[in-house]
């Protein structure tokens, strides 16, 4: 069973987060480079990137992480913007042409008098099933 975006009643452990699917293109990567002011050639210069061990351009890790944040926003709304935490590891680069699935599941829910703390396991995979990002997120929901 999954969380209905923005609906925070009836949360339970094991619930899945609203999954996103993103196709990575060089155009996306270039747009992100412009928007984030990160012009590292490994992301935007194909000639440079081909000569590196990576063999081609890769997406910014922060771009893929933005998708995780997008999923958390869809699930938890404004609570994520002021009370969100993420702790992730970058495992495999995402490349132009990859389809990235962004998903997760509620791992635990802790309630006290003032707030609910929801911890989630999150995972981004490419079309081959390789982990691109793994980690945990949490969000504080004030009562």
């Amino acid at each position, binding site marked *: 069973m999954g969380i209905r975006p923005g609906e925070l009643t009836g949360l339970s452990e094991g619930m899945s987060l609203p999954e996103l699917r993103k196709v990575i293109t060089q155009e*996306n990567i270039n747009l*992100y480079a*412009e928007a984030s002011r*990160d012009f590292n050639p490994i992301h935007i210069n194909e000639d440079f990137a081909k000569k590196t061990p990576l063999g081609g351009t890769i997406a910014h890790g*922060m771009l893929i992480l933005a998708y995780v*944040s997008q999923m958390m*926003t869809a699930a938890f*709304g404004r609570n*994520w913007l002021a009370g969100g935490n993420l702790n992730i590891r970058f495992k495999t680069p995402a490349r132009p042409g990859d389809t990235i699935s962004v998903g997760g599941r509620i791992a635990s829910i802790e309630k006290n008098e003032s707030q609910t703390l929801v911890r989630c396991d999150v995972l981004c995979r490419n079309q081959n099933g390789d982990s691109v990002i793994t980690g945990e997120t949490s969000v504080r929901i004030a009562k």
Partner: protein
Amino acid sequence: MPERQKIEYGQLVTGYEFTPSSYKLDSSVVAAYLRAVEDTSSLYQDTGLVPPMAIAAYAMAALSDAICLPPGTIHVSQEFDFLDTASIDNTFTSYATVSKNQSRGKFHLLIVDLNVINQHQKAMLAGKTSFILPAPSEGT
């Protein structure tokens, strides 16, 4: 963001504080960010709210502007705490401090703490970023 002099990562010591960097996220910057990450959430439509990862992206860009990161640098892990909502036209100041710069054989582990405040000195974001870099060559 103005161009700043970069420091070689081999020279960084624990506790080193980078020069703070300030940036304003206006509506055009936020719109470009949302377009780049293909985020069409209604939360950002006509509300004036800024995605927290946009603030994080600029904090990371400020850090990249401050360090000579050689080819082969790998961004291995990332932590962020989003502490408060931010609005369009807020001005942010990002502070970065080296919390670890450790040689591990042929590689270096560099960990930097990030803190971002808004123009009212309110804490907006905290984070920790970790890089693995090739060991500096002799003489650098």
